[in-house]
């Protein structure tokens, strides 16, 4: 599968409710070790309720400069969440469906982002 085809795909819960779009895919370097690096294993998908793409990652890290851009982008990606691979029931050409009772996790990449992103998440 080519990852670019998955980005921007609508995400639905088990009942068919729309949750947003796939904004990014999160990998962790703990797969089969090769001579140089381990294989990146898919940890989960970042789902953005308000935007189809997120390439700067302001909502996932603790960066606050330039302040205006950081605030705008963090607001634009408010409500983003990470859903783990275990909670994905189906990946299709036009949609992604999650399992019943899936868990939304913070998209934060570090502790600073975790503390900064929470107060700025908007309502859906």
């Amino acid at each position: 599968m080519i990852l670019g085809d998955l980005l921007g795909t609508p995400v639905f819960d088990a009942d068919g409710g729309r949750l947003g779009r796939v904004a990014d895919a999160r990998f962790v370097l703990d797969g089969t070790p090769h001579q140089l690096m381990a294989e990146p294993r898919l940890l989960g998908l970042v789902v953005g309720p308000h935007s189809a793409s997120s390439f700067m990652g302001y909502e996932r890290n603790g960066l606050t400069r330039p302040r205006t851009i950081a605030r705008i982008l963090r607001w634009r990606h408010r409500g983003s969440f990470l859903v783990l691979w275990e909670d994905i029931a189906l990946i299709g050409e036009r949609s992604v469906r999650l399992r019943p009772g899936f868990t939304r996790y913070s998209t934060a990449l570090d502790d600073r982002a975790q503390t900064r992103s929470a107060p700025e998440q908007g309502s859906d």
Partner: protein
Amino acid sequence: MTSANQQLPIAPPVAGRILDAQVHLMDRQVLDHDGVPVTTVDDLEVSGPDLDAEIPPGTTAPVITALLTGAVLGTRIFGGRPPSSRLIRLPWKDVAEVGVVLRLGIKGEPLDASWVERWVRDKIIARIPGGRHDPR
């Protein structure tokens, strides 16, 4: 849906380094082990899953198998992507380091990804007087 200021739980800790595809990999420059630019990462190839097929619980997560590059300027402007067969693959096993740029652990000269540069060098630059040796 998530309420306004509800703080989401942190994902369970994992042992390895975390890489977000768009933030850490896509559009990054790729250098070979001598620091010579090879290409940029236009897309990524993942080992699965099968499209439109239910994923049974407990299925092993897919992994990145290759970095993809190719002539994507047109499709970036007009949408879509080139056919999979037209994309050039750099196997992940050749990636040595992920940072501001991606470094390969191999020499870039023989890779398919740098054929345009080789062609321009051999067919055009080499025919310009003085184009066959280093500047002095």
